[in-house]
């Protein structure tokens, strides 16, 4: 791959990504959405974040992510549900996944 190709790709990706970020933010201030739609927006964010978290927890490149990662995430979620501090949740998830891999669990 040539460096100039990569420069073009990265420029387009950067511009497009910023464009989509700004489009949402700008539209949020500009258009007055009807009240029922306004109330849907936080729920839309919840749906997207939940989907993002679950697919990242369970899949890798379109396939099942193995056992160690979902197990780590599960430990984190249980701790979060039991009101553990956020840092503990994140570290416990990582340590569980890494520990299981160390034991040979995929």
């Amino acid at each position: 791959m040539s460096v100039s190709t990569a420069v073009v790709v990265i420029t387009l990706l950067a511009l497009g990504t910023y464009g989509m970020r700004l489009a949402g933010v700008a539209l949020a201030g500009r258009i007055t959405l009807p009240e029922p739609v306004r109330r849907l927006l936080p729920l839309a964010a919840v749906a997207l974040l939940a989907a993002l978290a679950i697919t990242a927890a369970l899949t890798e490149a379109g396939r099942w992510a193995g056992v160690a990662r979902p197990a780590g995430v599960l430990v984190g979620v249980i701790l979060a549900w039991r009101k553990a501090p956020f840092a503990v949740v994140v570290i416990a998830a990582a340590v569980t996944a890494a520990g299981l891999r160390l034991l040979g669990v995929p």
Partner: protein
Amino acid sequence: MANVRTILRTHDRADRAILRDVGAIALAALAIGVSFGAIATAADLPGWLVIAMSVLVFAGGAQFMAVGLLAVGSPVGAVLGGLLLNARHLPFGLAVGEEIADRWRGRLIGSHLLIDESVAFAMAQTDPVRRRRAYWLTGATLFVTWNVGTVLGTLLGGAVADPTAFGLDAAFPAGLLALLLPSLREPVARWVALVGAAVALLATPVLPAGVPVLLALTGLLVVAVRRRKKEVASA
């Protein structure tokens, strides 16, 4: 930037709590930034370009994907795949846009800090002032650690390239879910999240990356179904 500075100067307890929580995820972002820098350098991208990419794109998933597709000689796929993966930022922007800043300058800068984590941290707060602070604190902190990580990665090279080392791949979904839990106390939100996540999961093996997450918006149909039920019940 005056905006960011005032926000960072506030020291009340809730802010410190947010900052401490952000710290955990920011360290994970640093480590993943290191592996991104290393992988991109190993794919023969010059260091300055790798760093520019992290600063200007600032979206980890899309960056890994684009570098992977560039490495196998698919520049068009790299652009389209990366943009598809980032398309979720548009609905995210709609949801938090008015929380970011009142003025245009703040919104122009704040838009670049729109990432999954800044949205999740903002949504986890109940009052608007705190939501705004959480958004900027998270976005700015992760912007710094992601880029510092990338720089380190380009310098360290191949030795640190694997993001699954130290279980970092489990850290992000666990953090996102922990931030989502308070929102899920509401039954409607719980159903929307459940249906959305299930649809995305089922679509993941068959559709290109980025599309399944967008399909999660079908979870909003739950709201319509419930409203119809209520109408039927009250009729």
